[in-house]
């Protein structure tokens, strides 16, 4: 029997190259021009690190530093909260049997991924103003926790599905309460999934723009909104340097999330 091999199709190579080019060329341009020793964003005039220096010590460095700090602290807290909620949700969904409303629960958990972000953004803004919640750091945090849940949920529930329920049964059989069975047995076995979910939620929060921009209110900026604000006044090469740094950081976190998610699979029997 011949197996299906897409590489045998005419044009496979060309189309692949075209896709990769469209996806990554802009990023490559930004990365390359961040090292440009010139104010121009179209002409390359030699290699320099001056824009990186500008990001950290230039005129707008203070603004970026505050924005970066906000982004970082919000991402940490949002990812932590979302991971805790997602872990509880995953245990309920995977271990809860076939309860009534399970498909509906799954739909609710994954809603933020399905719904266009702009809809969530507008809805969140309307909701905040309806209940009189003042916009700022906390409103960003709350919104981030919500849309981070599904991203944390997916790797956690995937991991949990691969763990046999007999581990928890064995723990309970050996006099562990439900909490102790989770703490001493399930959580350590789930840990790679939880960590992977946390990192994914962290990076999603870190680079979110649309929802943040709607609910941030005046005066509070995260890194993406600060970059957008700076770009509106003209694209300067320091934005490219900042974007390149952000890109590298994202790649690092996503890679880490992927690697951690994979570890321990071999140790888990079956």
């Amino acid at each position, binding site marked *: 029997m011949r197996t299906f091999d897409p590489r045998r199709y005419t044009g496979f190579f060309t189309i692949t190259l075209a896709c990769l080019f469209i996806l990554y060329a802009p990023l490559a341009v930004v990365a390359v021009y961040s090292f440009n020793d010139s104010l121009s964003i179209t002409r390359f005039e030699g290699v320099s690190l001056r824009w990186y220096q500008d990001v950290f010590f230039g005129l707008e460095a203070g603004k970026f530093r505050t924005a970066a700090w906000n982004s970082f602290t919000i991402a940490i807290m949002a990812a932590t909260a979302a991971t805790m909620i997602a872990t509880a949700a995953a245990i309920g969904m995977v271990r809860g049997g076939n309860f009534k409303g399970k498909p509906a629960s799954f739909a609710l958990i994954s809603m933020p991924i399905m719904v266009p972000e702009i809809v969530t953004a507008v809805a969140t803004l309307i909701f905040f103003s309806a209940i009189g919640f003042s916009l700022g750091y906390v409103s960003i945090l709350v919104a981030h926790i919500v849309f981070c849940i599904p991203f944390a949920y997916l790797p956690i529930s995937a991991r949990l599905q691969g763990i*046999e329920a*007999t*581990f928890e*049964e*064995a*723990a*309970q*059989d*050996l*006099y*562990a*309460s*439900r909490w*102790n*069975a989770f703490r*001493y*047995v399930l959580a*350590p*076995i789930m840990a790679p999934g939880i960590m992977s979910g946390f990192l994914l939620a962290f990076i999603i929060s870190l680079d979110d723009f649309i929802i943040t921009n709607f609910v941030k209110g005046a005066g509070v900026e995260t890194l993406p909104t600060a970059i957008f604000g700076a770009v509106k006044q003209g694209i300067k090469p320091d934005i490219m340097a900042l974007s390149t740094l952000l890109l590298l950081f994202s790649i690092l976190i996503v890679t880490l999330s992927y690697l951690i998610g994979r570890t*321990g699979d*071999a*140790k*888990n*029997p*079956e």
Partner: protein
Amino acid sequence: MTNQTPIAAVALRSVGKDFGDFTALKDVTFDIGDNEFFTLLGPSGCGKTTLLRMIAGFEATTAGTIHLFGDEIETLPPDKRPVNTVFQNYALFPHMNVAENIGFGLKMLGWSKADIDARVAEMIQMVQLGQFVHRKPSQMSGGQQQRVALARAMAPKPKVLLLDEPLSALDLKLRQEMRAELKSLQRETGITFIFVTHDQEEALSMSDRIAVMSAGEVQQIGTPEDVYEHPANRFVADFIGETNLLEAEAGTVDGQSVMCQFGGSSISATTTGAVAPGQKGWLSIRPERLTIGTALGEGSIPARIGQTVYLGTDTQVMAHLEGGATLGARMQNTLAGADRLTEGADIHLTVAPGAARFLVE
């Protein structure tokens, strides 16, 4: 009776379990004695594992009561029941080493570190895993994991040890070794063992008593000899060991002895229940209770040899009776190279006294 009846280790009364429309267990009532090696034996889906899980507390009963040494336990969660389980796949905690696995139950019971260490050392000694104390389960063989699982379940000194097909994942040789080991472990510790298996050989070789189960009901409870020699019904006769099962009809009945008609032949068989002449039933004759001879003797049946299968220690012989029925017999190969059984040869089958059994259902 002056002696008080001893309290049963596990007392099951009218225990039932439904999963939706499916009845997994129906009206199960029996006692398991203290210090007993008790086996639940039956094919997959007979409810034996469900029953074990109900004693452990992983499944709730839908009917009936379960008492453990006189205490009602079916409302208690698993962690409040003084029973421990050896799981089929062992369920050793992959992130803990051997000592941590064995000590887990003690830690959860709140034992002091010194007491845990002492008990873990004792357990490790018991299952002879000294050199593996710091290994993770994934670095051990199936047989070693099995011993860890056993030590882990026995460390908290359970009142009853539940074993859910613990040997099924091991290869034959190891399985046979472990049988003897489990049996002597049970003798030494005096803990009541409830052992679930679908392997009748395992059940016969280890148990004090066996409950044979089928389709959610207990078919027979008895010693290994009981269930093998005096099967209560057709299912038990067929499931435990090999047997010739022939449709038969009761002829004259004389107490425990029935003259059975089958396929044009007739033979005297024993029975336990009340049998009326003309009643239909099954005749069960174990193959090893048939002797093949050349001369006509008392109670022998003329037959012709059909296919023979050489099995090492035995030879299996299919013998066709004149009436049309076929009986399988087993002959021990006591003489090397002896070839007395040629296909088509005329012989006489002798049924050992009491070996034929008439079963009503």
